């Protein structure tokens, strides 16, 4: 099996695995505080990922879906983290993400290309919020075993995804349109891998909510 085949396979697995946290969120998260935002996030992102997969399989252009996905994921995750950190959704932050992503699409990376800039900026912002969430968990007066704490597990899943995907997103437009045959051309595998791990870990975190 060539690296290209592994890349395609893992990319498919990554897209389909988005259904795992979507189902877990519907089943376990319910209306519990910030987690309900995750339910909304996965309820939209999972079917969109499946749509992009079907389109790709049929050789139909699907990059415009990634423009929508970057904005949706960025906004919902910003809302989720702000709710966790400040107990309320910071709407101006959500508006800023919408503005940045829109300006990127309108001025820098047209809808027919991959929006590397938007994905990178979103990921960088969310990475910082994820680190702040860890800090909040350390200093929290509530002591819960981390392996039993849904917030710790879910945040760990997202952090692995952000760390794995940031540089790949930053170079996304070059990777996806690369004509070379080296590892760089197939390095989308890093995003697929980290996204699959994220889906599994977040799914487990959501399952822990149901256990509580």
């Amino acid at each position, binding site marked *: 099996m060539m690296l290209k085949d592994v890349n395609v396979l893992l990319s498919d697995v990554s897209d389909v695995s988005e259904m795992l946290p979507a189902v877990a969120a519907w089943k376990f998260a319910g209306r519990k505080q910030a987690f309900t935002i995750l339910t909304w996030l996965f309820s939209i992102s999972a079917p969109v990922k499946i749509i992009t997969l079907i389109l790709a399989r049929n050789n139909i252009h699907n990059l415009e879906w990634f423009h929508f996905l970057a904005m949706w994921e960025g906004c919902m995750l910003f809302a989720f983290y702000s709710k966790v950190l400040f107990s309320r959704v910071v709407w101006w932050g959500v508006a800023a993400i919408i503005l940045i992503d829109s300006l990127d699409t309108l001025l820098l990376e047209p809808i027919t290309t991959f929006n590397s800039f938007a994905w990178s900026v979103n990921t960088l912002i969310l990475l910082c919020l994820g*680190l702040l969430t*860890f800090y909040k*968990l*350390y200093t929290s007066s509530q*002591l*819960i*075993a*981390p*392996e039993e*704490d849904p917030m*710790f597990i879910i945040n*760990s899943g997202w*952090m*692995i995804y*952000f*760390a*794995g995907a*940031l*540089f*790949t997103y*930053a*170079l996304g437009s*070059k*990777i996806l349109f690369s004509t070379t045959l*080296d*590892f*760089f051309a197939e*390095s989308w595998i*890093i995003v697929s891998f980290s996204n699959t791990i994220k889906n599994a870990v977040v799914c487990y975190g959501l399952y822990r909510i149901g256990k509580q």
Partner: protein
Amino acid sequence: MNEAMTLIVGTSALLVMIIFVILSAFLYQRRLLKKQREFAEIETMLKKQELRTTYAVIRGQDEERKRIAADIHDNVGGMLATLKIYSDLVIARDQDDELQRLNRKINNLVEDLSVNIRKVSHSLDSGTLTNFGLSAALEQLCETIRASGKIGLRCIIDLPTSPGPDASLHLYRIVQELFTNTLKHAGATHVRFEISEIKGDISIIYEDDGVGFDVTAVGGTSMGLRNIQSRTEKLGGEISIQSSNTGTTFIIEISAVHEAD
């Protein structure tokens, strides 16, 4: 090639950093949890020690009363008996009528004193129970436990008529044993005790929120439980015990306790 290197090194560095952060958070919280568990254990041990002290105070009071009773009975009683013998001798030997009359008076007084000392000694031995009845004795027992402040206690004593002395002593010892078991073994924070009498039928409901015990396993081996069972049987009563890890309930029902007494 440069872009590939940037991608690999950047992603790897970021992944290592994130994994380090997650690991640090995990280890930090585990350490805090461990400390918290240790504190909880120390608190449990201190609480157990306090309960043991309460139990020792109750036992100590009982023992002290018994010791005073024995001292009065043996020492003062013995001396009074000797005094009476001397008085008898004086009566037998002295011919003077007036002195004999006075000596008889002394003799009678010594006899009365001996009887009274014996009464005081016996009542001290069985405490409030003999003097004031079962209700007062149980209330005093509840008050002693409540005053220790180590356990939340709700006592409901509804005994319109007091059972006979033997039945009262059995019932008192049963309740005392129930409290002793809770203080010694249960690690409970709250106890509810209720005793009521209707037409001679007495029922006791005793509940604690302790760790409970295996009724089938402990029932056969525990001296305290056997004591409760045998006293209940002597009164012709029935006992039912329900225990789980959230508490224990004893229900003792004794029919027509006056007749059994």
